[in-house]
């Protein structure tokens, strides 16, 4: 078994011990979405109009919260030093972390998304696009998240700063994710949006591990 797989397994093992964490993320996802009807008032037409956008925005915010735990605990207890000193390229380590993060956070968010869509009364024919865009978008979030998390490692106010850095970078995901759903609802072509998101995913796969590894090295200097 190679280093990559080992690290993924380690992460999953830890996440399993702390299974609460993923649950909490999902609950936050739902709860944040639930807040809107409170704030905006229950008019069904407006809510269903907002459904696609709200799902994506709240998913983004929930992910934002999860990023902070990506490296911070390992950084503080010294595990990160050890990972950096393990005979595995740091880029792979980052990729493994991102993978584990997606499995423990992205997937649950995907699973919960339809629930919110239902609560907001999203039109039926939007669901396909919702799941597809989530499937393509959440990995991008995890990947970009690793960069933000690595950059803010050891920073004061880590969490918020991280959000501040990552949000501008993930906005394209949001735009096309929501747009694809709107398109599906409006009966327009969904493929182009999804293709674009696929492109982002590839770009993120190439760039993010590199950037994150670089900034992790800086953090450990």
């Amino acid at each position: 078994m190679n280093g990559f797989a080992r690290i993924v397994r380690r992460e999953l093992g830890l996440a399993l011990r702390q299974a609460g964490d993923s649950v909490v993320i999902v609950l936050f996802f739902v709860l944040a979405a639930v807040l809107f009807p409170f704030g905006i008032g229950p008019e069904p037409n407006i809510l269903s109009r907002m459904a696609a956008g709200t799902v994506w925005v709240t998913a983004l915010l929930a992910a934002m919260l999860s990023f902070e735990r990506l490296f911070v605990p390992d950084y503080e207890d010294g595990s990160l030093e050890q990972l950096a000193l393990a005979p595995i390229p740091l880029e792979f380590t980052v990729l493994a972390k991102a993978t584990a993060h997606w499995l423990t956070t992205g997937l649950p968010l995907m699973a919960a998304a339809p629930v919110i869509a239902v609560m907001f009364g999203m039109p039926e024919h939007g669901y396909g696009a919702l799941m597809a865009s989530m499937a393509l978008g959440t990995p991008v979030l995890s990947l970009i998240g690793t960069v933000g998390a690595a950059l803010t490692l050891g920073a004061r106010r880590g969490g918020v700063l991280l959000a501040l850095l990552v949000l501008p970078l993930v906005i394209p995901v949001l735009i096309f994710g929501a747009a694809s759903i709107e398109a599906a609802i409006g009966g327009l072509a969904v493929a182009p949006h999804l293709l674009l998101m696929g492109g982002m995913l590839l770009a993120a796969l190439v760039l993010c591990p590199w950037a994150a590894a670089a900034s992790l090295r800086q953090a450990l200097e």
Partner: protein
Amino acid sequence: MRFFGEALSCVRGERLVFSGLDFSVEPGDALVLTGRNGSGKTSMLRVMAGLSRCAEGTVGWEDGTIRDDPERHCARTAYAGHLDAVKPVLTVRENALGWAQLNGGDEASAMAALEIFGLSDLADMPARYLSAGQRHRLSLARLPARPATLWLMDEPTVALDADSVVALNRAIAAHRDSGGMAVIATNVSLDIEDARRLDMTAGAGA
């Protein structure tokens, strides 16, 4: 194979901590870094580990510097720093095993390492319940648990009780007998036989 550094100088926070330091460790050697607080022992160890890079000079092996082939250097080097890298949610065994396997060790070597530091009877206890010294022993057990030529230890005796210090010295001796090398940064006097000494204060700011 020799591990050595030449004309090393290190800058932390825009300040020159030490400069013009050389060192060299042969198989079977032990090098003890001494010097008052702030003289740069930890900084030097991190440079040796390849975590931080020095402002000047080169560190490496006879067959190439650290930068030439980081992978190889990592495979040869085991580092135990101030931080313990112990996960509270995992048991003592799982902690030891995880790091061992990641660095080419296995179940057997991991358990042997726990035995050395008298942790085998705590093996199935969640690391959360360990005391300061027990936790530090667990982090020290990472070194014998994996194959590595070079041991780097920062203040290894911190929080250790008398028995554990003895165990530590034995472990280091055994490692050296099998042709390993050890670099130890410490403020307390360790009785390690015929160890080279590097007084960081010498290079301080000079």
